[in-house]
């Protein structure tokens, strides 16, 4: 299997009509055809135009990714599908809320690392912090890993939002 096609991570944005069941269609397509979802975010982006944007991080061989894009394009309430990994260079950000519980030296170390990662403290008690951190997913992964020995208690991540670089819109 040495020449098996390489599985890579892709970020795909889907502009959809904001109608009932549209998210279920997208998710059902992924589960029904056996595609991966690593993260998925969805929110209305234009209230007047009734459009929402779904950003999906998925992984697969080039053939599978091509199928995912084509299958998404076939859904009726979809305006556009763009792959930020292949079609246009994109920029990705994710936000996370991270709760760390501890006292003494570990607490000081957590605060020091948060500062280095530009994570903000948004809630604090004598025994806990909640950090807000924004960045590329691997930066958040790294921060979470560093917090683990320091009393990591809870993590909530938004999933990826992505946009193209340069002046062009989606």
């Amino acid at each position, binding site marked *: 299997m040495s020449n098996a096609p390489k599985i890579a991570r892709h970020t795909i944005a889907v502009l959809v*009509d904001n109608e*009932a*069941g549209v998210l*279920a*269609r997208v998710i*059902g397509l992924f589960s*029904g055809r056996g595609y991966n979802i690593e993260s998925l975010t969805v929110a209305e982006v234009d209230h007047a135009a009734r459009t929402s944007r779904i950003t999906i991080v998925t992984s697969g061989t080039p*053939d599978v990714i*091509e*199928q995912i894009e*084509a*299958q998404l*394009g*076939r*859904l*009726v*309430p*979809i*305006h556009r599908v763009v792959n930020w990994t292949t079609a246009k260079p994109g920029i990705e950000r994710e936000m996370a809320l991270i709760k760390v519980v501890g006292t003494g030296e570990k607490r000081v170390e957590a605060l020091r690392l948060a500062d280095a990662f530009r994570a903000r403290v948004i809630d604090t008690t004598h025994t806990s912090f909640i950090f807000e951190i924004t960045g590329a997913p691997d930066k958040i992964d790294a921060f979470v890993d560093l917090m683990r020995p320091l009393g990591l208690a809870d993590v909530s991540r938004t999933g990826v939002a992505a946009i193209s670089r340069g002046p062009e819109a989606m």
Partner: protein
Amino acid sequence: MDRNATAVMSRPAQANSADELSGAEIVIRALKDQGVRHIFGYPGGAVLPIYDALFADNEIIHVLCRHEQGAVHAAEGYARSTGKPGVVLVTSGPGATNAVTGITDALMDSIPLVVLTGQVPTHLIGNDAFQECDTVGITRPCTKHNWLVKDANDLARTLHEAFQIATTGRPGPVVVDIPKDVQFNKGTYVAPGSVHHRTWRPKTDPDLAQIVQAIDLMAHAKRPVFYTGGGIINAGPEASKMLRELVEITGFPITSTLMGLGAYPASGPQWLGMLGMHGTWEANHAMHDCDVMICLGARFDDRVTGRIDVFAPDAKKIHLDIDASQINKNVRVDVPIVADAAKALKEMLHFWKTQRRKVDEPALKEWWTQIAQWRKKDSLKFVTSETIIKPQFAIDRLFAATRGHDTYITTEVGQHQMWAAQRFGFDDPNHWMTSGGLGTMGYGLPAAVGVQMAHPDALVIDIAGEASVQMTMQEMSTAVQYKLPVKIFILNNQYMGMVRQWQQLLHGGRYSHSYSEALPDFVKLADAFGCVGLRAENPGELDDKIAEMIAVKRPVLFDCRVDPKENCYPMIPSGRAHNEMILSDAEDGSAMGEAGKILV
């Protein structure tokens, strides 16, 4: 001004609210404005207002089927034989869930259907109300699109969009779920012309650069083959006409999938027969050895390709499909063309002629010499019998007897379906209705009802198996009620023949539950239904019985007793390549191997 709007405005009863109708009336009006003449359905609590509006109407003909699955298959037969969308009306809950098999069948075979389902009133949705189910949830993966309409003011627009989506681009089934209160509520009617969908823009025009690339490959081909499918049928009779012209001016051989039979005439000189698992020796070998494959409106289904990594290894592949997601799905192609088949064929013909393209005559001649060698194999031959009716013989006699009639054939699923596809020569599109993608036993009888409804004077025959036909046998009653003279020609071998064949080839002849120990007496059953029952038990009486079946202008159940042990050949065992076909029981039955066993 729009004629429909005028009609609504002129209604005296609507004087105070000129364009307000009840939801149920909106449904009927929308159907009429969409040109619907026939609908297939079954009433129930959640669609009573629509049935009441139907009662008041005398233009739309409602066909009462005996099961919602039957109603959907009937609509499929109607759609496939006319090119128009089939319309179904069923109630909530079990009405909708019973329709699911038919809807999935239509999705797999790209049949345009508009299925209207009743739903419990909006205030009860989510309440586990009587006969409630999440119809849009259940049918989401088996429709092209679906809607739950919660406001009577959205109903007309939604229905028009439903027709548009079902019939444009790659056709398919749609479901409109209408709660009972919405059927009673008043809403504004809008005519079809005023509806513009926000997102639906199917691509139907071909990219001309790709058309030129395609004909360039064709002009230089040494061993070309046309491989065509149901997309040609769906693109309308014009597409079949242009396909025939393209095949004729190039002189290339042509094969077709199960769904595409009739697009090119089986009596045509360049016809190789059907390809795939039960395709002919010449069609499959031509596919394997070709250097240019021109795939038009087919989707490289696993029944067609066999083992995918050795599929047509030397071929440059052209793939025309209206659905972009079919391109490179199973097989990577060299020239993709995403377009409506009729539009693409028109351009192919245009460029071929204006660029004065010529084929490679000497190479083509050699290719035909090779094909003639393959044809000599006579892969559809079978051993005849004086004493027992061979199923192949029965199909041959049926075909001979129907010459000169306007004949439409439907089938169930299994051996009889493959024998019909192999042996019944289809010369025209839209005359062959079969369940290809989903392989739905029980499709053929209700489909025949739908076909006969659309073509009252035609000879409509369901070539059936005794196992399949029992799945929707109750639709015989529908045929009797509407005086539809459908002929149910049952190749009765007492086995689920294809299951038995696979058990023989793959499971050591252990015929686990594939033999029907208790079969009804089909002749008596016909009598009970109030139709005609006929039986043929030996080859000598077959022709007379078939003639009698055709002559009688009533529905017929024909019990044709055939050899219970006959297998369907040729066959590409699962997991094998096109050039690894087996032709008879005499060849190694274990040819499938372990890897093939897990395939279906």
